């Protein structure tokens, strides 16, 4: 592999990386904002879960390329929004089930105890059930983040920016080192974000560590 392409293009790589972060992480945030209420509704009114889950899964089955093209042709044009909206929709099939599972595994005695000390439904949800569900929800966010970063490169070959541009450019001009750099950066980005989420989860759920410490 010829490497002389790389040193002269570090700026491009940095710019593409920053853009990639934006177009792959914003969708996860959006997806989470949509998934939390959907998950809460699915747990509270059980009959709503099959249709919500069904739609999320159906969206996931749409080839990403087609959705990117559809958005950039008809909805948001050749902008980063055309990447962000489809990627956000793809996260739902991971995030909604995890929010639901997280809330469902809150032990009944805990729920009853919260009610007994006078928590209303909303306060119980915000201060008891959601915090307990955090590990499961974060597990979903981790999968969604890694998937979004890797899938985000498809947006690049559609001309929507990010690291995927390197793949298209590297293919058309036959520069393997450019493609290679794009792959490595995507993987590194995914790992760094995953690691950050692990740290975030530890910070959000100090009690999980305390319990482990007590058992040891």
């Amino acid at each position: 592999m010829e490497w002389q392409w790389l040193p002269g293009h570090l700026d491009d790589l940095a710019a593409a990386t920053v853009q990639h972060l934006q177009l792959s992480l914003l969708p996860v945030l959006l997806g989470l904002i949509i998934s939390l209420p959907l998950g809460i509704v699915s747990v509270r009114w059980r009959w709503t879960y099959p249709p919500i889950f069904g739609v999320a899964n159906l969206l996931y089955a749409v080839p990403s390329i087609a959705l990117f093209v559809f958005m950039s042709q008809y909805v948001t044009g050749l902008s980063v929004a055309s990447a962000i909206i489809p990627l956000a929709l793809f996260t739902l099939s991971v995030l909604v089930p995890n929010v639901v599972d997280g809330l469902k595994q809150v032990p009944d005695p805990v729920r009853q105890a919260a009610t007994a000390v006078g928590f209303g439904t909303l306060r119980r949800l915000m201060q008891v059930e959601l915090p307990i569900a955090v590990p499961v929800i974060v597990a979903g966010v981790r999968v969604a983040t890694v998937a979004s970063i890797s899938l985000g490169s498809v947006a690049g070959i559609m001309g929507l920016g990010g690291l995927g541009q390197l793949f298209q450019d590297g293919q058309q001009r036959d520069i393997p080192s450019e493609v290679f750099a794009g792959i490595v950066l995507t993987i590194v980005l995914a790992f760094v974000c995953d690691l950050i989420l692990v740290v975030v989860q530890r910070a959000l759920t100090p009690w999980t560590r305390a319990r482990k410490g007590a058992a040891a």
Partner: protein
Amino acid sequence: MSTFLQFFLHWLTSPAQWSGPDGVPARVGEHLYYTLLALAVAIVLALPVGLYTGHTGRGGFLAASIANFARALPTIGLLVIIVQGLGIGLLPPLIVLVALAIPPVLINTYEGIRNVDAELKDAARGVGMTGTEVLFRVELPAAMPLILLGLRTAAIQIVATATVAAYVGLGGLGRFIFDGLSRQDYQALAGGTVFAVLLALAVSLVFMLLRRLLVPRGVRLQEKA
């Protein structure tokens, strides 16, 4: 959305779509072929590893790391670089699709086997089963729902992603999408997309049937309760 529907209907009812090597049946056939091949290879590679690591409890971290790594691989970039190395052919898209399918199969098998009720395993050993018997006659059937779920996720991902095979000159439903894109023929693009989604729905149905066939009645009843 309505333009999309009009496009699709117009495209669908034109007789040119229904015959020859560029017709819908041929492309669906190619797409199914890539999908089944990739799924089969992924099962051969990932299922035994998942069974082993789940059964022994050893190497679970490694399995999870491999799966996570595979998940982070950017499909298109990987495809382009493999094609630059190996040339155009069935192998590059196959490698990419297999890499995509391994994480869900591996993780679900590992988690499914590992999380089988410990009492169940003890009982199986107690009646004199060997390790292999415990794995195949107790753990595997009990973990079947989760394993099938992993296979289903893998299959749906492959169906959606096999469209990229067309990016490097192969067939399948991606042909309609990429050719539609370069010719600005958005009817073809809409058509290819709808058929890819229909294929994914068909895959879901097949897995519902498999679930009926492969999950023992006792496990199904337990799940309902």
